[in-house]
C-alpha cells in the first residue's frame, strides 16, 4: 500500500507493508542514503532524524512515524548544496569508506543543533551509537569540532 510521509521537508507517498521498519521502507523507496549495517539497532548506519532526534530507523515501525518529520542526510544538505557540517567532514578527512557517514553526519547535526559548543567528551558521547571501523573516530570528532568552530566564528546557527 501507499501512505504519505513527511521526508526532508516534502510530503512523499511511500510504498510499504504495514509491518515494515522505517529503514526498509525508506530504502525500498529510493532513500538509499540510509544505510543498513546490522539491522539490529547497534551500528547507527541507518540513523535518521525523527522530529530532529536521531533514531536507528531499523528499530522503528514505519507506520508509527507517519506524523513525524523524517530527515535523512540529504535533508541536511545535498551534493549540490552541502551543509557546512558535511563540508567539515570532507575537510577533516572524516570520510573514509563513507558507509557510516550519513548516520554520523545526522548524529553530529543533532548534537550541534542542541549544543553548538560541545566539549570533546560531549561529542564522544553523542557519537557513541554510531560505529565506524575506518577512521578510528579521530577525524570525525575533528569534523564536529571544526563545525562548532565555524558556528562560533561566523555567528551561525545549525539549520
Amino acid at each position, binding site marked *: 500500500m501507499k501512505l504519505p510521509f513527511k521526508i526532508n521537508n516534502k510530503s512523499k507517498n511511500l510504498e510499504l507493508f504495514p509491518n515494515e521498519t522505517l529503514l526498509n521502507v525508506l530504502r525500498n523507496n529510493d532513500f538509499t542514503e540510509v544505510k543498513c549495517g546490522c539491522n539490529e539497532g547497534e551500528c547507527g548506519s541507518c540513523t535518521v532524524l525523527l522530529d530532529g532526534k536521531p533514531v536507528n530507523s531499523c528499530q522503528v515501525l514505519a507506520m508509527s512515524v507517519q506524523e513525524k518529520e523524517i530527515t535523512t542526510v540529504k535533508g541536511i544538505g545535498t551534493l549540490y548544496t552541502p551543509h557546512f557540517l558535511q563540508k567539515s567532514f570532507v575537510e*577533516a*578527512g572524516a570520510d573514509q*569508506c*563513507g558507509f557510516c557517514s550519513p548516520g554520523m553526519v545526522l548524529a553530529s547535526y543533532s548534537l550541534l543543533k542542541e549544543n553548538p559548543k560541545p566539549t570533546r567528551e560531549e561529542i564522544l558521547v553523542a557519537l557513541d551509537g554510531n560505529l565506524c571501523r*575506518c577512521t*578510528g*573516530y579521530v577525524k570525525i570528532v575533528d569534523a564536529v569540532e571544526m563545525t562548532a568552530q565555524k558556528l562560533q566564528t561566523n555567528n551561525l546557527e545549525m539549520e
Partner: protein
Amino acid sequence: MFKYVNQPIEKIDGLALVTGEEKYTDDFSFNNMLYVSVLHSGYAYAKIIDIDDSEARKMHGVVEILSYKNVNQILYTTAGQGYPEPSPYDTLLFGKTMRFVGDNVCAVAAESKEIADEALKKIKITYKELKPILNLEKSEGSSIIIHKDDGAFPKIPVFYDAKKNIASKVEANVGDFDSAFKKSSRKIELDFYCSYGSHCAIEPHASVSYLDVRGRLVIISTTQVPFHVRRIVSHVAEIPVSKIRVIKPRLGGGFGGKQEILLEPIVALMTWRTKRPAKLVYSRREVFKSTRCRHEYQTKVSVGYEADGTINALHLDALENAGGYGSHALTVLANAGSKTLPLLNKIENLRFTGMGVYTNLPVGGAYRGYGATESYPAYAQAIDMVCEDCGLDIVEYYKKWCIKSGETSAIFQALGEGKEGVAMTIGSTSLVECLDEGAKLSDWYEKRKLYGPNSDFNKGKRLKRGIGMVAMMQGSAIPEIDMASAYIKMNDDGSFNLNVGATDLGTGSDTVLAQIASEVLDTPVESFIVYSSDTDFTPFDTGAYASSTTYLSGQAVRKCAEEIKKQILKVGAEMLSLSIDDVELNDSKVTAKENIKEEVSFAEICQYSLYQKNQFQIQATASHISPKSPPPFAVHFIEIEVDTFTGIIKVLNYVATVDCGTPINPVTAEGQVEGAIVNGLSYTLFENYYFSPHGKMLNDTFGKYGVYTAFDIPPMKVKLIKSYEETGPYGAKSISEININGALPGIANAFYNATGKRLHSGPFAPEYVLKILSEK
C-alpha cells in the same frame, strides 16, 4: 618539493559520500530481481544425507534452489589471491560435508527476501552429525579428519597433508638456531594466544547480478578483488571469463574481509540459470559466522641471548587455526615470520616454524595485519623481556639492532608467499627517527623512570600505571607476484580519464592515485575523472590487499602518466613549432623553456590532437610489478592504567610514529593509522569469538562482539616521519596494515611495566587480567 603529492587534498568522492549520493552494492536494484537467502550449517561437522526441497519448490514465489544436488562439485579456494592461488582447493560452493557452523548448505532465490527466508525453513535436511575438532591444539594427527577423501589439493607445489589436518606448513632457517640457543648463557620462552577476530566493515557483504542486453553476466559486488572475482566465478560457476563483468561500486570498508569470493558465485549461478537479476545481502550475523575472520593463533618465541643483550638465536613458532577451510592458511602463516623476523636483522640464528591446521571452527582469511598482528605480541614481548633482564632501554636497543638502510635480512629470501621469497635490501627507513620522536612525544624516558612494578608510583596502589612500546615493520605489495595497471586518456578540455583496476575500498586510493597523476602532469587533481574498478573498463590490478595500492598501483599510474606527458609534450612542441627538447609542462600548459609566454594549454593540445592535424588520441596504459616489498615501519608507545580491582585496562595515551615513505596524502594516511590503531585496540581489549560447546559463535552481533565506539578511544598522537622509497611513486611505501599490529604487544609491555606480569592471551579482558594478577 611537490605540488600535488604530499598535500592534504580532499577526497574526490568525499562530498558524495557525506551527502549519501554514492552507491554501494546493496543500493543497486533491478526490475524483476530475485532475492537470495542462504541456509548455513548449524553443525560444526556433519554430512548431509539428503536435502528434500520439494515443499520449498512448491511455494509461490520460489524460483530456484541451489544445493549439492544441482551444483557441480568443483573444488576451489574462496581466497581472492593471484593465480595459481597459494591457498588449497578444498572448498565447494555447496557440498555435502559441513565443516563449520556457518558453512553453506543451500540457497533459495525467490520473488522477495521474505519468501526466500520462509522457503529455507521448508527445506528438509537430513544430517549425520560427526564429532568435530573444536580446539586447534588437538587437530594435527587427530583420528578425526576434516578433509577426508574429498579431493582437496594444493594448487601450487607446497606441503599439504589433509590426512593429518595440516592445511599449511612453513619453515625457514637462517644460521643454526639449535646450537646457538644451546650455547647462549640466558634463555627465555614466551607463548601468546591470539583470538579470532572479525573485520567488522560496517557494510555487510553483498552481491547483485544481472544479464546485460547481450546475455553477459554482470556482477556488482562488495569486493576488494574484482579481477579475482571474475576468474574464480568463471571457475566455480563454469561461465567463460569473456561472459563475466565485475563492477566494484563504492565499498563500505573491507580490511581483508572482502578479499574472499563467497557471495558472487551464488548470485552468478542464480542469474545464469534463471536469466533474472539476483541479489544477496548478508545479515550482520551471517557476516560474523559465515564469512572469513582473523585466524586464531598460538605462537611461541624462544630466545637465547647474553648478559649484554646480544641475541644469539630466536625461534618463532606459530600454530594457526585455519578453521574448516584453508583460505589464506599458508600465506598468513608465512607472513607471521616474514613481517617480524627481519626487523632485528643482526640476530644471526633465526628459525621460523609454522603450521596451519584444519578445525571445525570459522574459517580464517585475510585480515589487515595478515600474520604480523598474530606474531608481534610474542616477538615484541620477548625483546622487552631481554631488555628488562639485561637492564637495557628498549628504545636504544631497537635503535642499535634494527634493520637499517642498505642492510638486508636472509628472511626476505627464505620466506615468500607459497614459494621462496625475494632477496631485498632496505632502501628507505626512518625507523630510528620514529623511535626517537615517539620517545619524545610520549615522554618515554620520564615515564619509564616514574613507573615500573616496584616504583613508588605503583607499589601498593590499586591503580597502577605503565608505559610500553613496540617497533614494527610490514611490507608493500607482494614482490614479483602482484601486478597493477592503469589507463589514461586525454579529453577536449584538458581533463583526463584515469581508469584503474585498483580497488578503493574506502581508503581514498582513487584520490591518492589522481594526486600521483597530477604530479606527473602538473595539472590539478580535479582534472582527473577517476574510475575504479570494472573488469570491462579498467585494466587489470590484483586488487586491494597486501598493502599494495599506493605503492604498486601508484607506480603504474605514474608510469602511465609519464607516457601521457611525452605525448602531450610532442603535440605541444609541434604546435609551438619547437623541438620536444625545448618545451616543458607548466601548470596544465606546454611552454617553451626559453620563453614561458610561448604556451599552449592542455585543452588546445587535446583539441589539436583530436580534430586538427596528425590526429590521434592522447592515451596510454602502463603496468607495474615490484622487484621488492619495501617495509613501512612504525613505533607505538602506549601508556596505560591497570585497575587491579576490576582488571580493566585503560589506555591513557597512544603515540604512533610511522614511516610510510612519502605520504602521498597526509590526511588520508593519518586516517589509515588512526583507524588501524583503534581496530587494534578494540581487538586487544574487547573483541573475541565466544563459542558454544558445539562450535557455534555465540556473540554474533556488534553489541556482543564489542567493537570500539567513539567513546572508547584514548588520546592519540600520530606523526608521519618521512623517508624516500626510490622504488615507490614519489617515494611512497604502504601504510594501511602495519598500525593494527601495535596495540597487543604495546599494551602487553606496558602491563608488565605497571604490574611486573606478562600477558599471554588476547583479548586482555578484565577477567583474564584479574587471573594474571592473581597468579603468584
